[in-house]
């Protein structure tokens, strides 16, 4: 499908919805591959929360647009360049440390962002934000706990977490490179960035991980539909069934 959103609010919301669904997909890939059973269930549970959050956001977008398409169409029938998720969440599950660092960075961002949206002038969006905030906080607790365990665990676990953090931090700059749309719908973009940066610095220090000098990759902004090389692969797996069997029903 060629998606053309008419309303600014849905153009903003689709960034949040896409970020949720893509991270949900990455965590779903971990199903049956967790380091042990309880953790496998934890990641699958968080994945479900993200899919649920994405679905509610897509429903809201469909409603604002008065669209004849559904959340499923939006997820399964758009191409890479029509997705507007932050690149952080499309980064692969290289190992468990990547899963945790990615989740920690995302949850901290999502918690502050949805926290601000609880006072949105759109009552439905505000209600949704109140609802999902509880879930994000729980997931954040889980990720923060694992940051400590990996960072302060063994030499090997610390080394792996450091490697994951070094890679993932390359995809942070664009998140805070706000545009007019962000500034319209996020009450306080400046505090979103400072809250995130301060909390991350404190955490990394506490779990013995260095904040190294990083070189940001030369890929254009996610707000214009640009992605890292991992996005196409992710979509080809996620969208395979509905593309091979259009309109298939369970």
């Amino acid at each position, binding site marked *: 499908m060629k998606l053309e959103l008419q309303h600014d609010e849905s153009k903003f919301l689709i960034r949040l919805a896409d970020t949720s669904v893509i991270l949900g997909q990455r965590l779903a890939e971990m199903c049956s591959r967790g380091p042990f059973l309880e953790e496998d269930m934890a990641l699958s549970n968080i994945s479900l929360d993200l899919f649920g959050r994405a679905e509610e956001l897509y429903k809201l977008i469909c409603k604002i647009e008065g669209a004849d398409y559904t959340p499923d169409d939006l997820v399964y029938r758009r191409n890479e360049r029509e997705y507007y998720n932050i690149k952080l969440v499309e980064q692969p599950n290289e190992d468990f440390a990547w899963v945790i660092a990615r989740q920690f960075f995302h949850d901290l961002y999502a918690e502050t962002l949805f926290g601000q949206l609880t006072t949105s002038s759109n009552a439905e969006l505000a*209600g949704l934000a109140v609802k999902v905030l509880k879930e994000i906080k729980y997931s954040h607790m889980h990720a923060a706990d694992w940051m400590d365990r990996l960072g302060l665990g063994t030499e090997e676990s610390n080394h792996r977490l450091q490697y994951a953090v070094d890679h993932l931090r390359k995809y942070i700059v664009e998140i805070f490179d706000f545009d007019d749309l962000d500034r319209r719908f996020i009450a306080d973009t400046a505090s979103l960035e400072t809250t995130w940066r301060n909390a991350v610095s404190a955490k990394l220090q506490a779990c013995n991980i260095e904040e190294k000098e990083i070189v940001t990759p030369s890929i254009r902004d996610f707000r214009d539909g640009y992605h890292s090389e991992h996005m196409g692969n992710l979509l080809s797996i996620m969208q395979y069934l509905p593309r091979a069997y259009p309109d298939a029903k369970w």
Partner: protein
Amino acid sequence: MMTTTEEHKEIWEFLTEVPDPEIPVINLVELGVVRAVDVTEDGTLKITITPTYTGCPAKKLFEDLIHEKLVEKGFEKIEIESVLSPAWTTDWLSEETLQKMMDEGISPPTDGDKVIQCPNCKSKDTKLVSQFGSTPCQSLYTCNECKEPFNYFKCHR
């Protein structure tokens, strides 16, 4: 056109016959999922529900089960609407419901997840095994006293 309170009461009764698909001992009214029952002017029965967690796999099933029950009771025009606000909370569970959970072997939610009682031996000396359990609303604990593992229904507010 009947929209008497009596009729609504009967419908609420019918809805208490719909069990939660994952914890069948609790019904959807007790769980706080059913928020309102209305009959519109054209006689459509309108049920307003709210999901426990946004990603709860039983979300769609709630609607199907409610629909099925009302059809069984002879209703024809049924509309089910899901709303997110006010957000579902375990504060809506009654004392009686909490007791039912305990009897069923699921430790019920306590204020801030602080004191968690083993449903088997009733000891309060228990430890968290995993923040996430078999459903989004539960986490896994072990009792330090009787050593039995059990599910705890998370405090959600």
